[in-house]
């Protein structure tokens, strides 16, 4: 069950439209040796098909649907400590992030996003033409 599931990143002009019920998921962010930034997002109850990650105009949006918590119909809820949620959160990306090579996977209710740093050759010398 804990197969890593690859997610295709959609770079689209439209961000997902979360409903009013959507809650921000908890996120950990850390930096790796090569400068890549890794986001670990808690989205319990959501599988790969219910996750939508987009980058649009420098904004990373994360949407996931974990509302279906597989409640057995014949049972009566005796104690309710959590309800499945729709998750939505957005992050502004700095220019250092290589937006075309963001990787995402889902496993055990965690979404992991790897944001590689754009190549160091950012500084580009402009030749000045004579005349």
């Amino acid at each position, binding site marked *: *069950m*804990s197969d890593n599931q690859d997610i295709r990143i959609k770079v689209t002009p439209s961000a997902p439209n979360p409903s009013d019920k959507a809650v921000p998921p*908890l*996120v*950990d*962010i*850390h*930096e*790796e*040796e090569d400068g890549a*930034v*890794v986001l*670990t997002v*808690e*989205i*319990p*109850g*959501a*599988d790969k098909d219910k996750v939508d990650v987009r980058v649009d105009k420098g904004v990373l949006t994360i949407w996931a649907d*974990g509302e279906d*918590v*597989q*409640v*057995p119909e*014949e*049972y*009566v*809820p*005796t*104690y*309710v*400590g*959590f309800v499945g949620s729709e998750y939505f959160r957005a992050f502004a990306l700095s220019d250092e992030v290589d937006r075309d090579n963001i990787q995402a996977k*889902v496993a*055990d*209710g*965690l979404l*992991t996003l790897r944001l590689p740093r754009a190549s160091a050759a950012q500084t580009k010398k402009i030749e000045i033409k004579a005349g």
Partner: protein
Amino acid sequence: MNGFGWQGWWNPWQRLREMEREMSRLFGDVASPVGATFPPVNVYTDNEGATVTAELPGVEPKDLDISVRDRTLVLRGERKAPEGADDERWLRRERAFGQFTRSVDLPFAVDADKVEASCRDGVLKVQLQRSEADKPKQITVQS
């Protein structure tokens, strides 16, 4: 209380709440730095058994220990930090890590041999059968 002492024992909600409060007091603050009781659980019951679901994002089944005794289900485990995250490289920390213990008191005794647990997308589902000895017996009135 309205003078009827029986109100406490027939109401499983009240009993569960008392138990949860007690466990939160004992383990909640230690097990979960964010202060909330971890993991959050739901309990569903009918006359034949109970289903308990728990939100455990990022906890692998091998790091999870589930035990049952009489009326109590105990979930133990560990939440691990993401790999490769050295202390000085954190940019944001909202999730909590470490060991946790959560006891769930059920309204009836369960058969410890007939417990099934499955984990999907970070949601644990434990199915328990009410023990035969605990089930109410139908008494036939003889004429």
